[in-house]
């Protein structure tokens, strides 16, 4: 059996003395898309944060290419694009400044590429506008523009469809599917059912596991 890109072994998570899930195993290989589903408070976000190394599991471990996550933070950082519930967008900075900083931090990109990415998410003409004047959906788009900038293979997205309009949702779904078909990996949480699924699509329902 080949070593999967990202693997969780007997993962358990406890928040405030409450066990969210335990004995959770999952494997992620190029081309896979994993939708984490479940009711509110079932530990979807916690699972995503465990996979990113932002949180430590109560038991079990997360392996990246067969080795423990803790030992190779740098390796994970180079392969991971994480967009949390809050995407790290500063209201006082313009869309372009926000994106330029996030790129400098994660994936160097040229000035032209940043403008191109903002245009791809439908923010042409809003590049120089401070983000606090943008709508919630537009702010979400600024964060999502990173997905259009020569991104790393593994995307972990927490509720990426929040506040997006119909057209935005369809466009993002297509982009995620395309990324998976090209050998990328996506782990996401969302409450709506995806209309476009790549061949490597799977669903993990945390609510059913607990039941």
């Amino acid at each position, binding site marked *: 059996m080949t070593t999967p890109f990202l693997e969780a072994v007997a993962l358990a998570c406890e928040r405030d003395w409450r066990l969210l899930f335990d004995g959770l195993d999952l494997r992620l290989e190029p081309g896979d898309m994993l939708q984490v589903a479940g009711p509110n408070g079932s530990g979807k976000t916690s699972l995503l944060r465990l996979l990113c*190394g932002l949180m430590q599991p109560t038991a079990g471990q997360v392996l990246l290419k067969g080795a423990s996550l803790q030992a190779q933070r740098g390796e994970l950082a180079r392969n991971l694009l994480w967009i949390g519930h809050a*995407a790290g*967008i500063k209201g*006082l900075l313009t869309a372009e400044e926000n994106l330029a900083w996030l790129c*400098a*931090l994660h994936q160097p990109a040229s000035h032209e590429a940043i403008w191109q990415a903002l245009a791809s998410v439908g923010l042409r003409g809003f590049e120089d506008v*401070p983000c606090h004047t943008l709508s919630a959906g537009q702010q979400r788009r600024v964060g999502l523009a990173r997905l259009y900038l020569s991104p790393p293979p593994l995307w972990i997205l927490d509720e990426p469809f929040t506040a997006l309009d119909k057209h935005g949702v369809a466009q993002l779904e297509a982009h995620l599917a395309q990324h998976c078909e090209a050998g990328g990996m996506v782990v996401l949480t969302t409450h709506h059912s995806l209309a476009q699924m790549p061949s490597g699509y799977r669903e993990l329902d945390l609510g059913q596991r607990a039941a």
Partner: protein
Amino acid sequence: MSNVFTLLLARESRLLFRRPAELANPLVFFAIVIALFPLAVGPESQLLQSISPGLVWVAALLAVLLSLDGLFRSDFEDGSLEQWVVSPHPLPLLVLAKVLAHWAFSGLALVLLAPLLGLMLGLPLRTLPVLLLSLLLGTPILSLLGAVGAALTVGLKRGGLLLALLILPLYIPVLILGSGALQAALQGLPAAGHLLWLASLTALAVTLTPFAIAAGLRISVGE
């Protein structure tokens, strides 16, 4: 690597300048506290002069502490800290840039304002270089140590008072050395000893606290 450091400095400065009230508040606080003392203890120049070293330093310390409460708060709330933690760059380097930018616009401004307030308290002109130098060496320590507390309390709803309780005891050596230097200068004694001790503490703080701040942020983000 150093590129990210300078970019972060530029970003933080830009953020601070777009919200100038946050920059001005600690400075105004510093000036008002010092202006209140002559009103409270009376305008006798002898008395004021003898308490001024301690007074300037306690006021500076409280002003820095006041400005630190929100240091990481907005970054925590809008998810920026998560992005820092998952980035390939070393977190201690990023937090050092953040704290330095913060110090350059609050601590340094406080240092520049201090001679004026020193004159208000009747400090003789010859002591002003020591006042400037001691604050210049001391305020970075206050900012860096305070940032350790700010990193640990950022996830709490009302971390302000807890921050003060955690950090004020750690400020004692800086307070003793800083006001000691000024006291020595006031009595016509050499202040070099105190200042050198302060300088070594600054070097220690710049090299070690970024690791503590980074560890504190990892804990806060991981909660």
